[in-house]
């Protein structure tokens, strides 16, 4: 059969970062083809190439009959490619019928809107996917999965032959997942090709016909799902040897710095976390996206305060209700979203570095520029930040150096506990190993480090102990040097046959 979509040897670089280094992929009519890979393996870049958001540097795309070098969003839509994102791009103030109508039919500005026809169309589409939604409901009143169903209805209504689903189950309940799976199977039956992206192996076994694994921007193989078992799949995903890349652990862990008992926060979805982090120790925190790791960090940093449970720092119980309070107790948090929360791009790096230490560095609120510059220079030297000087705006630095600035800001507070959230996301390889050395060095100096990472080799290579989160709680604490399969199995909630 002729494939709906065929990509050959797609390459794409962003500056010095090579996101895709020759990916080939094909999609047959009536199949569910899973795309599997760790964070940063190149999945989202590949999707953006297919939907026309990025044009590849090299390689060709064949869509149906047409061979192309690249796509634009409107061209992709025209060729019947639709994408359902994790965060649906709908109009919250408009009704379901209207959202579908706006998407599907382009009219002149003064064309009359036929509400009855729109409603009927929406009703039919929703019925086809078995969604029990009223076309008159306002989208803002729908849950996330219901909004995804609206997106799927749009895709179906536009006559899409290729439907891409990006982590569609990330925020769904078990029941909603079943509904979604039924829809996917229906799509398959009607001859639509589905590209299905997920971290959850059990879903891939339950749903997919074939699976392509991406690793470091390359496709490492396409297999029939029936030919693989879980272990084989994890091996394909993790692949590389991890041992030598990381600085070795040194010294012994000291006293317990942070201890959590049955920590809960309903708003953040954190449920009964028990955890200890000792001085001089790096505790890696693994888990899937949405497992509650960042949410736990936000609780510990006072952004979304805990409802119940106990936080002790150096044995003293604490309540943390604002970042300011957390900082005063010696907790530092290097956030995941560097651009929004970490570094203020327009401000000089010296100002960025001193931002969290205003009360200490500038007692009596008067700025002391000399002290500020000295401090910034120290960090620029110690952490090897590549910038022309303390006055360089954060935005003029590369991602890795921005991250070092973010880390500097928190080291300046002389914390007892350092929480790092995805410390090397979007950072090139060279800077990555420098950041690893810095983190190890901090632990050696007696800092307690909690490092959240979705980069499994990083967790395995850096951690003295590995805590695995799943569904808002810590499900396992494994010793450092554990096997990748064990960690993955814990993160996935081993088994995986619960969904049929």
């Amino acid at each position: 059969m002729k494939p709906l979509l065929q990509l050959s040897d797609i390459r794409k670089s962003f500056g010095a970062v090579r996101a895709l280094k020759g990916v080939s992929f094909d999609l047959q009519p009536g199949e569910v083809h899973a795309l599997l890979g760790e964070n940063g393996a190149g999945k989202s870049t590949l999707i953006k190439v297919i939907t026309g958001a990025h044009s590849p540097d090299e390689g060709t795309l064949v869509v149906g009959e047409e061979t192309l070098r690249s796509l634009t969003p409107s061209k992709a839509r025209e060729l019947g490619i639709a994408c359902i994102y994790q965060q649906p791009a709908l109009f919250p103030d408009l009704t379901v019928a209207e959202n579908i109508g706006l998407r599907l039919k382009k009219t002149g500005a003064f064309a009359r809107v036929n509400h009855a026809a729109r409603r009927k169309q929406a009703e039919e589409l929703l019925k086809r996917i078995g969604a029990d939604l009223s076309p008159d409901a306002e989208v803002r009143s729908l849950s996330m999965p219901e909004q995804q169903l609206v997106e799927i209805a749009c895709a179906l209504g536009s006559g899409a032959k290729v439907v891409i689903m990006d982590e569609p189950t990330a925020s769904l309940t078990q029941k909603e997942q079943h509904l979604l799976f039924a829809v996917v199977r229906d799509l398959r039956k009607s001859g639509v090709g589905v590209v299905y992206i997920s971290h959850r192996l059990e879903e891939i076994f339950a749903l997919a016909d074939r699976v392509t694994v991406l690793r470091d921007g390359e496709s490492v193989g396409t297999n029939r799902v029936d030919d693989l078992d879980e272990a084989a799949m994890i091996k394909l995903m993790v692949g590389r040897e991890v041992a030598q890349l990381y600085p070795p652990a040194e010294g012994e862990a000291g006293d317990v710095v942070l201890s959590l008992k049955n920590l809960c926060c309903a708003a953040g979805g954190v449920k009964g976390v028990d955890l200890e982090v000792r001085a001089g120790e790096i505790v890696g925190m693994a888990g899937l996206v949405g497992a509650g790791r960042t949410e736990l960090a936000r609780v510990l940093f006072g952004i979304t305060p805990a409802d119940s449970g106990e936080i002790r720092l150096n044995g003293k119980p604490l309540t943390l209700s604002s970042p300011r309070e957390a900082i005063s107790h010696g907790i530092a948090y290097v956030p995941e979203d560097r651009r929004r929360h970490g570094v203020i791009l327009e401000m000089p790096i010296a100002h960025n570095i001193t931002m969290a230490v205003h009360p200490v560095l500038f007692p009596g609120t008067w700025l002391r520029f000399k002290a500020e510059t000295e401090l910034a220079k120290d960090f620029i030297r110690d952490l090897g930040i590549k910038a022309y000087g303390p006055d360089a705006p954060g935005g003029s630095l590369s991602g890795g150096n921005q991250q070092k600035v973010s880390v500097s800001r928190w080291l300046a507070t002389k914390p007892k506990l350092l929480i790092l959230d995805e410390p090397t996301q979007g950072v090139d390889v060279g800077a990555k190993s420098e950041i690893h050395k810095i983190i190890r060095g901090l632990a050696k100096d007696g800092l307690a480090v909690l490092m959240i990472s979705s980069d499994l080799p990083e967790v395995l290579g850096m951690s003295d102990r590995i805590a695995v989160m799943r569904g808002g709680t810590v499900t396992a604490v494994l010793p450092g040097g554990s096997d990748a399969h064990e960690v993955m199995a814990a993160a996935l909630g081993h088994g995986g046959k619960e969904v049929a």
Partner: protein
Amino acid sequence: MNGKYSREISVAAALGLLLVALALFAPNFYELQPLLSRTTSQMPALVAAIGITLVIITRQIDISIGAQFSLCGVVAGLVAAAGMPLGVAVLAAVGAGAFLGAFNGLLVAWLGLPSIVVTLATMVTWNELLRLWQQGRFMNLPAGFQWFGLSQAAGQGVVIGVAVALLLAAAWSMKNLAAGRRVYATGTDAEAARLAGIDPKWTTFGVFVLMGALAGIAATLNLVQSPQVQPNAGDGLELKVIAAAVVGGVAINGGRGNLWGVLLGLLLLANVNPALTHFKMEPYWERAIQGLVILLAVIADGMKRTKKAA
């Protein structure tokens, strides 16, 4: 979801209460002729309120409405004083309004400047230009201009008729024309609108032009009610109609609201002053009450939002 129309209902209730109180304690509020005159005098504001509603739904603001209104009135008056027929004067006012609106729209939609500062600047520019040019002179209009040359009652009927027709047309278009839906879509989420093939810039620009044109129509509806052109007729109009929109449930951050709520809001605010007079209270409180009402409406919106977020 307790009621999509909760705001409309509560404003209607407040208005009803006010009217009942007036009926009980100040029945002369309902004398036909003064009531009709008062209603007619609110029609220009109603037409301007239609415009500001569209602007706010698009997630913008226009505080130059009053200045546009004054300027359009003077333009129409000059054309009429030059001996042109009524129709030409009306067209001149609408054209001048559309031009002034296009000026705002250009700066906001294509240069991406914040509408509040742009329209603050155009408000002052037009107002001062007008003062400079007219020196506060009242201009006499040719006979046959007042009440469109009809009897007062018929003229009042035409004014009310035009305003109500515009309201109905606008309400219908906002619901049933693609353009109307685009206004909502742009105000809800400009980025999502772009993805759905709507050009938010053209939509925004169009709304500002329409706002100006409506200010022109409003100015003519005001003009025909007196034998003279007042060069400062639009002073404070912007606040009155923004207050009406906010009170009527138009969300200040775009995407939500409808004209029926705005109509109720305007009626409520328009009756504050007559009510003050009829209850033998001081009318000087009007502006303060207007400000208070705006604040209460935003606070109500804000509390609704936080409740939803929690």
